[in-house]
C-alpha cells in the first residue's frame, strides 16, 4: 500500500520579478489501487503539477508538501523520486541522441531495482511488454524518442511504466495526439498495470475520451492552478457535456 499526499502545493515558474504563480494550493491524495483523473483546460497548470511532483528544475515550490508513504518527496532529487516509486509519463518526451531504447530501459531498470536485471528474464519481459503495446522489436535499437511519431512516444512512455513498475504513475496527457487504435493500445497497457498490482494512477487529461478506456475512481476538475471540484466518474460525463466554461467563470470571479 502506498499513498501520495499533496497538501496546499504552491508552485511558481520564472525568477525574481518574472516569477509567476501557477499552482495555488493543490490538495490531492492518491492511494494504491486508485485511479484519479485530473481534468482541466489548457494552461490550468496540470503539467506544472506533474513536473513539480517529478522534480523538474524549472519549477519552484513556494509552499506546501508532497509525501510518498510519509517521505518528503520535495527533498528528494529527481532520480530519488523515481527510485522511491514515482513515475511520470511525459506529455512531451525528450529525444536523447545516440542512446538506444534498449540501453536506456536497461539502465533505468538497473537504477530502479538497484541491480542489473537478469539478462534472460529482462529480454523476455521487454519483448512481452513491447508486443503488448504492439511495438516492433526493431524499436529497441532506435535512439530514445529520436524521430518517434507522437503515438510511438506515448507507447514508449507506457512501456517504461510497465517495465519500471512504479507505485504511483502520473500520466500527463498520454492520450493527446493518439488515434483511436493507439489510444486503445496505450489504455490497455495502463489497465494491465491496474489489474496486476496496486498501482496508483494520476491520469491528467484535457479530454474525456481516454476515460472510456480507463475508468477513474475519482475525477478532479483543475482550473487556474487548483482543484475546484471533485467527484466520481459521473463528473467526467458532466464535463463531457458542459465543458469547463462554468468552472473557468467561477475561478475568474473568485480571483477578482
Amino acid at each position: 500500500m502506498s499513498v501520495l499526499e499533496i497538501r496546499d502545493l504552491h508552485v511558481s515558474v520564472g525568477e525574481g520579478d518574472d516569477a509567476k504563480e501557477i499552482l495555488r494550493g493543490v490538495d490531492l491524495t492518491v492511494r494504491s489501487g486508485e485511479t484519479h483523473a485530473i481534468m482541466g483546460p489548457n494552461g490550468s497548470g496540470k503539467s506544472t503539477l506533474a513536473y513539480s511532483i517529478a522534480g523538474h528544475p524549472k519549477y519552484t515550490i513556494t509552499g506546501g508538501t508532497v509525501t510518498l508513504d510519509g517521505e518528503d518527496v520535495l527533498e528528494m532529487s529527481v532520480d530519488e523520486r523515481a527510485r522511491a516509486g514515482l513515475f511520470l509519463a511525459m506529455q512531451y518526451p525528450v529525444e536523447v541522441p545516440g542512446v538506444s531504447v534498449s540501453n536506456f530501459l536497461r539502465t533505468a531498470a538497473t537504477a530502479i531495482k538497484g541491480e542489473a536485471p537478469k539478462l534472460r528474464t529482462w529480454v523476455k519481459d521487454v519483448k512481452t511488454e513491447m508486443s503488448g503495446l504492439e511495438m516492433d522489436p526493431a524499436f529497441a535499437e532506435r535512439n530514445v524518442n529520436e524521430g518517434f511519431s507522437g503515438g510511438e512516444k506515448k507507447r514508449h512512455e507506457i512501456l517504461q511504466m510497465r517495465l519500471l513498475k512504479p507505485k504511483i504513475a502520473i500520466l500527463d496527457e498520454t492520450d493527446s495526439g493518439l488515434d483511436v487504435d493507439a489510444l486503445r493500445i496505450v489504455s490497455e497497457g495502463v489497465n494491465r498495470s491496474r489489474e496486476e498490482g496496486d498501482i496508483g494512477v494520476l491520469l491528467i487529461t484535457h479530454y474525456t475520451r481516454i476515460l472510456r478506456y480507463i475508468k477513474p475512481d475519482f475525477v478532479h476538475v483543475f482550473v487556474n492552478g487548483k482543484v475546484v471540484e471533485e467527484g466520481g466518474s459521473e463528473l467526467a460525463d458532466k464535463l463531457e457535456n458542459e465543458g469547463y466554461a462554468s468552472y473557468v467563470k467561477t475561478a475568474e470571479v473568485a480571483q477578482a
Partner: protein
Amino acid sequence: MSTENASMTDLTTQPATLASELFAPGVGAQAGPPTTPASDTGTAGDVQPGAHSHGGPTPTGSPAERFTSTDPDAFGVPTGREETWRFTPMKRIKPLLDGADSDARLSWTTDLPEGVELTRAEAGDPLLKGLPEPVDRLAALTRQRADGADVVRVAKEAQLDRPVNLGLAGTGGDDAVVWGQLVVEVGAFAKATVVLDHTGLARYSGGVSVLVGDGAQVTLVSVQDWAPGAVHGGQYDAVVGRDATFKQVVVTLGGDLVRLVSNVQYAGPGGSAELFGVYFSDETQHQEHRLWVDHAVPNCSSNVLYKGALQGEGARTVWIGDVRIRPSATGTETYELNRNLVLTDGARADSVPNLEIETGEIVGAGHASATGRFDDEQLFYLCSRGIDAETARRLVVRGFFADVVQHIGVDALQDRLMASIDTRLGALPALDEQPVEVA
C-alpha cells in the same frame, strides 16, 4: 536564389554540476564561456549568390583563391597572426614547424586485404606531382621532407573483404620530427575502407591524399589515439571522382596537440563526400580540425558532422568548416554541423562555419554550429527514470559521441573507441555489458 539554413547557437545550457546540485531549486541555466565570436555564428538567414554567409560587409566579387604551393618558403614563416594559424598555440606546434629533415619513421603494423598493395613512390614520381598542393607551410614542409610517399593502391573494382588497417605508432623517446606522406589510390568502382590508427608518442607531420576513382566508395578513418605529449599535424586531401562516394571519419582523442586540415575536391559530377569527426579534449589538449570543401563541379554533395566534448582546465578545440560553392557547381547540396559539449569550466571551443555560395542554382546549403553545456531536458528525462545525474550525464555524452562513431562501420574499432571514451568519462554502470538484443 540560394538559401541557407539559419545558424543555430542555442544549445541548451546547463552547468555541469554534481549530481546533488543538478536539479536543486534555483539552479538556473548558465552559459559556458562565450566561445565563438558572435559574427561567426549569427543567424544568417537568406544568402544571396556571391554573398558571404556571415554578417559584416558583403565582399564584392569572388572570394580570394586559397593559396597553395609545394614550396614551404612561399608561405613565409607563420607568426600566429595569420588566419590559418590564429587558433593554434604556436609554441606547441613549433617543434613541427622548426623540425629538421629526419629519417625517423612511425612503426607500421599493416593488415592488407586481397586487392590492396602497399608500395613506395619516390620523390620524382608523377603520382606525387598530381596531388592537391599543400595549403600551409607545415604541409609544404611535410611534402618536401617526406621525400616520396607510401602508396596504398586498391585495384579497380576490388571489393575489399575487410578494412585496410595501417597501425602507425610513435616510438617516443626521440625529439626528431617524423615526416610522412601517404597516398591512397582507389581504382574505379572499388569499395574500400582504410583505417589509419595513430598511437604512441611522436612528433608527427603526415600528409594523406586520397584519390577516389570514378564510382568508387571509399571510407578513410583516421584515429588519433596518441599518448600524452604527442604532436600531430597533417593535411588530408580527397579528390572525389565522378559519381564516387568518399567518407572520412576523424577521431581525435589523444596527444598534446593535434591539428588536421581536411580538404575535399571533386574531379567529376555526381560525387558525394561525408566528413565526420569526433574529438574529446581533456585538460590542456589542443585539438584543431579545419575543413575545406571546394564545390567546383555540378551535382555533388557534401555533408559535414563534427562533434566534440571538452573537459578540464585548458581543454581547447577549434573547428573551422569552410565550404565554397563556385559558380560552376550548380546542383550542389551541402550541409555542415558542428556541436561542442563543454563539460566543465575552463575549457574553450571555437567553432567557425563558413559558407560561400556563388551560384543560385543549388539544391541546398546550410550550416549550424552550437556550443554549450548539457541539455537539462535530456538529463531530467533520464533522471526521472531513476538514473542518477552522473550516469545520466555519461549516457548523454556517450550518445553524443556514438552518434558519429557509428558511421565508421567497423565494429571492433567502434567498440574500442567507445570503450576509450567510456574510460575518459568514468565507468558506466550497466552499460559495460553487451547491448541487449530484443529482437
